[in-house]
């Protein structure tokens, strides 16, 4: 859904973040590549969820356990705190109810890892400012009328959302042009951000 030049950077970062042997739920798992990598390198026990039949078939052919379902229906059938990590990689912006999904992730998982394209990046701001057109980039290649990305936000928007919903940001990793960058003025510089989150008040 979010076309980045080297998706493997994301996978590499997320794989680094997760501890050996964790129990992982990957929402919007696509073809199961991340879970496959996590299984191989971090010995995680994990499962994926995706809405597309084609993706489910790819997962099964990789030996990944997967469930065909719609994230917007929530995770009501998943038990509280049943996963160490719930991952939402490049998927938040396509959900219809991002806040519900986010809250559910933090109910079902002890921690959540979330990545999304930063709409506050200066390149996008310039496109709107100078051309007066909706921004189109390599990472966000769609026109306004055919984009699946219905809930784009800036890094700052997301930080505010977390504050309003008692979600604590444990760690932030910013990237641009498939490279990690430091967090200095990340809202302007990062094309993509990855957050590790947990609930502020642990029950």
């Amino acid at each position, binding site marked *: 859904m979010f076309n980045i030049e080297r998706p493997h950077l994301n996978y590499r970062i997320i794989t680094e973040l997760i501890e050996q042997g964790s129990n992982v739920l990957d929402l919007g798992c696509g073809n199961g590549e991340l879970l496959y990598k996590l299984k191989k390198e971090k010995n995680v026990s994990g499962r994926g969820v995706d809405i597309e*039949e084609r993706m489910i078939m790819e997962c*099964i052919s990789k030996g990944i356990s997967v469930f*065909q379902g719609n994230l917007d229906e929530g995770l009501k059938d998943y038990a509280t705190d049943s996963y160490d990590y719930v991952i939402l990689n490049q998927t938040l912006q396509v959900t219809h109810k991002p806040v519900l999904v986010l809250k559910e992730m933090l109910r079902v998982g002890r921690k959540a890892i979330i990545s999304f394209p930063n709409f506050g990046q200066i390149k996008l701001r310039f496109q709107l400012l100078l051309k007066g057109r909706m921004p189109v980039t390599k990472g966000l290649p769609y026109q306004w009328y055919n984009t699946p990305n219905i809930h784009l936000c800036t890094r700052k928007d997301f930080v505010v959302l977390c504050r309003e919903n008692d979600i604590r940001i444990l760690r932030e990793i910013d990237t641009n042009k498939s490279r990690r960058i430091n967090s200095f003025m990340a809202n302007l510089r990062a094309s993509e951000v990855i957050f590790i989150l947990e609930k502020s008040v642990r029950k």
Partner: protein
Amino acid sequence: MEKGKVIDSKDFSKALPGKNSVDKAEAAKQIPVNSAGTAASDDSVGIVVPHDYEFAHPPGEMVLESGRKLGPVNIRYETYGELNREKTNAVLILHALSGDAHAAGFHSQDDKSPGWWDAMIGPGKAFDTSRYFVICSNVIGGCQGSTGPASINPASGKPYGLLFPVVTVYDMVRAQYELVANHLKLPSLHAVAGGSMGGMQALAWSVQYPDYVRSALILASTARITAQGIAFDAVGRNAIISDPRWKNGNYYDGEIPARGLSVARMVGHITYLSDLSMGMKFGRKLQTRQKYGYDFTDEFEVESYLQHQGDKFVERFDANSYLYITKAMDYFDLGEKYGSLPQAFGIAKAKYLVVSFSSDWLYPPYQSKEMVFAMMKSGRDVSYIEINAPYGHDSFLLETVRQKKIIESFLESIDV
């Protein structure tokens, strides 16, 4: 649902939806190709020979779930492929309501149609007989070789009729266990697999014999049939029972209740299709006439199709068996038997693959999902996919391309 079904691929290409998310090219690939070859084809298991195994001789009868006894019990079965030296590659295929032990291959050179799941069982097929030793047996209560109501009651020397005890899905599975564990001497099963009532048996297997089954494939099935499903079964049973030739089940020495059984099959057949596939396949077309005849002959194509299905069925199926087997399906409720579904799956150890079909309204996808969540709750390893296919409940017999891809990789992912 149907044995030796020959699909006219031309007809079914018309049944494919235009607006469905399945695109045309994809759709062309999906056209069901059943009974593709002959006994000599490379992907056929060739000529197969049915076997019989008799057990539970009195006084050691099988005690059924109802508490009643049955014995001796015969099981008709077929096998395809070779058992490996370690005996780790056995796969048990479980049939649906009207199926039988003849799942693949041909019984003779001039046999016109192959076994009921030939599209999925054979060298290089979903259940690859060059890798797996595949077994299929007829359920008890059936009428295709295994002991059922048409079998001779040793107490009277006449067919059982309604004296045959009611059997359940669990009883069917126990009889299959006798076959594979005690007769074929298999130490374990790599997989148990079935669609519809076959899926119910696969579920029961995984819970009744948790240490014996490494994986279970549940296709177009449910842990308990819906009220709507029971309702259709009840109509079928009523059709049989109200046929004057049924005579309380004692018809074996005279005319059979063909009319009743045929109507039961017609009702059943409606439930295996979908509005879409019926609309595309038949529409409102008339069979032979150009104009309405203003009478009550079978003039719509769909009418004569159902009539034909009914008539064909009567030639090969016993009306009493239809009563017994539909009853077994209606009684099946895994959650009720084990306290709850999560409790049932808490006993199981198998890895599951659950497949539902978008247009299946008899065993709807939401039921499969419920089952999958219960499995997850119990910590079972499970994959779930809803295949977008237009053929209704029968999709599990017709949609072979995608099922093959899923099944072969799932079977491969199971550690021995």
